[in-house]
């Protein structure tokens, strides 16, 4: 009875205990391009140890040599349990394992996948059966990309296959959704708004005493500066979203706050360089990285990278244009008086600068 009773007590305590640890998880990424299928399957070394055995010297540590020694077995194990079908017939899939990767602090073997289907598929079925016999809690996070859109699913012992209609993934729906998100991000991203305001203020209001541009000249200059800012942040947004760049969020957020502060200072210090197109471009590079974080949080990867990227960018632009268009008539009206010109420019820049200091303090 003691054994039973022990279990009973522990069961009661553990009832409320969180299901503590993520179960084992693999990552399967596939891209379908015409009749060609490419991708990779990342399986954690802990899982492969359980499934095929890696730790040859039983020292509770897995070395690269031990992984290489079992390469053939790993490849065979995966190849036998992974299948892609197009229109009812299997695609040929070659598996190789030459590299490793780390995810969340754990080491993964990267299995490269390459194959061809009988014809360019409109519909694929991916069947996955690794690990389930030894670990019924195992999951695989699958992403299938085709034509710039991605669909994802979590496969488990109960749901071992995903079927995707490649033609039905609409890039337009992703585009529209992310355009709306882009507008909303600008409206709620006060740091970006502040920066755009700081770009526009000196152009409309002039910098020195007595200087005053025609509204036509001012509008063209605004167009130039805002376009430079846009080009820059579109570039880094794309690079970051595609995974070429990966800068820690905190650093980016701090740098954005710093850029607002610098812009505010440049606006009020008479000897400072003008906040023209080139500086706007430089700062735009930083802001783009911030947009990328927002885009990532919205799950752009699941929705199709290219369409969501373009949509988000378009939304950000629309949001920016709306802000400038709303502020412009008021600023143009104000610039008739030298007093108001300076008051708005100094007060506005000072307010933005003060906000930037607060943000910087929060983010550093």
């Amino acid at each position: 009875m003691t054994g039973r009773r022990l279990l009973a007590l522990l069961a009661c305590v553990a009832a409320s205990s969180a299901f503590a640890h993520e179960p084992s998880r693999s990552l399967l990424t596939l891209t379908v391009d015409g009749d060609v299928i490419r991708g990779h399957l990342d399986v954690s070394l802990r899982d492969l140890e359980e499934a095929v055995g890696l730790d040859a010297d039983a020292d509770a540590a897995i070395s690269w040599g031990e992984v290489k020694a079992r390469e053939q077995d790993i490849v065979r194990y995966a190849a036998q349990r992974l299948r892609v079908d197009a229109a009812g017939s299997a695609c040929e899939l070659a598996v190789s394992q030459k590299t490793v990767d780390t995810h969340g602090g754990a080491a993964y073997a990267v299995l490269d996948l390459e194959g061809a289907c009988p014809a360019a598929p409109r519909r694929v079925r991916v069947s996955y059966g690794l690990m389930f016999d030894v670990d019924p809690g195992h999951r695989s996070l699958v992403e299938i990309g085709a034509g710039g859109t991605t669909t994802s699913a979590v496969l488990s012992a109960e749901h071992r296959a995903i079927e995707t209609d490649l033609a039905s993934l609409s890039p337009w729906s992703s585009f529209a959704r992310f355009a709306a998100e882009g507008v909303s991000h600008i409206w709620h991203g006060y740091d970006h708004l502040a920066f755009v305001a700081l770009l526009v203020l000196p152009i409309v209001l002039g910098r020195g005493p007595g200087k005053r541009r025609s509204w036509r000249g001012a509008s063209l200059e605004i167009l130039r500066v805002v376009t430079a800012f846009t080009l820059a942040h579109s570039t880094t947004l794309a690079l970051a979203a595609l995974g070429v760049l990966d800068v820690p969020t905190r650093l980016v957020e701090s740098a954005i706050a710093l850029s607002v502060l610098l812009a505010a200072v440049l606006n009020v210090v008479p000897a400072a360089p003008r906040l023209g197109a080139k500086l706007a471009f430089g700062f735009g590079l930083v802001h783009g990285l911030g947009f990328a974080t927002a885009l990532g949080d919205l799950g752009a990867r699941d929705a199709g990278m290219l369409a969501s990227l373009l949509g988000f960018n378009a939304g950000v632009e629309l949001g920016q244009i709306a802000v400038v268009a709303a502020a412009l008539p008021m600023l143009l009206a104000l610039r008739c008086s030298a007093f108001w010109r300076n008051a708005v420019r100094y007060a506005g820049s000072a307010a933005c600068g003060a906000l930037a200091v607060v943000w910087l303090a929060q983010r550093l």
Partner: protein
Amino acid sequence: MAVVGRRRMSAAVLFCAALLFAAAAGAAPFVPEHDQQILERLPPRSGSEWTAIAALHEQLERDPAAAPAVAAEVARRYLELFRVEGDARLVAYAQRELAPWSSLADPPVEIALLRAEIAQLEHRFAEAESDLQRLLERVPREPQAWLTLAAIELVRGDYANSRRACAKLVLLHDALVAGACLAAVQAATGEAAQALAFLERGLESAELEPALAAWLETLAAETAEALGGNCAPGSSEAAPNHHRAALASAMDGGSAGARPSVYSLVAYADCLLRGGEARAAQALLAAAPPADPILLRLAVAEKRLGEQSDARLEQLRFRLQLALEGRAAAHAREATYFALYLLEQPELALARALDNWEVQREPIDARLVLESALASGRHEAARPVVDWLAVNGVEHADLKTLIARFAP
């Protein structure tokens, strides 16, 4: 001036360029430098528990006729290891042992009990409950089934049914276990003072098994916290003393390898963090196994101490990715905790907290909803939870403070 301007401008551009490329280059597949490079350390599989499991596996191969009893014993040992190591793979291994009976509606009693317990650990509460009900129709005098059922009803916030299941134990098992079972319900529902008195009396009795003592101590600590006790320096010592005693009892040989359970470590760490004792919480968890709830508390302690590490956050983000996206309900509590205290995204936290509330309704789950709603300024979203707490007579010092901050 033009020259100065240009120089400053190039400085600004350089600053941007440096920012971009210095920190660039994310994780990508790589070829290790040499064969001896260690890529992964496995959790140690030495110790009496693993030896016993290996021996039992051998016995299973020799004598298939002994299967149900031996397989159940292996599964039980995996679950005990899970409680101290917090690695979900161990639950899956226990499930694997029971696979031959997985399709049977009425497996042998010990298999049915373990199956229900695994379902409960994976937060498949409805399934665990119906399994247990079915078993109790067959074997109405099975105390373990009533106790597990009581625990499930308690977590789900069905206090009446939890009390009913505990009451069955009075006749079937010993009075102390039945009383502690009831005390857990009382602690949540406004009778925490009586519950604490009962538990402390029970703890005075001699000859308690270490596992029983550890359980009673943790319950007593949580009950003291419901009454307003905490682990801040200078406040009443009841809560921290009981937490420490729970850990000490486990060390006396309560569970696998005389190690404290993840649950009791997390409970004490939460008490310390609420009391502003980040350094003590960090020290407590420094050598603890890397289970998600442990890493979350460690990360919060590090954040409070100004020692936050990006690697820790990335690790948690990867592990909790599906739960953060709302695709793993069993981890919604951890996802909420991560979003609220570490990512500081209260809207996201609120969404996950409400998902989690549909699954489990312990004080910490209510607390996560209330705090997320307050932080995101969406008070109305927590209204059903506030009402539910009132209707069910839930009383907890922390919740009371939080509820007071909601507009009436």
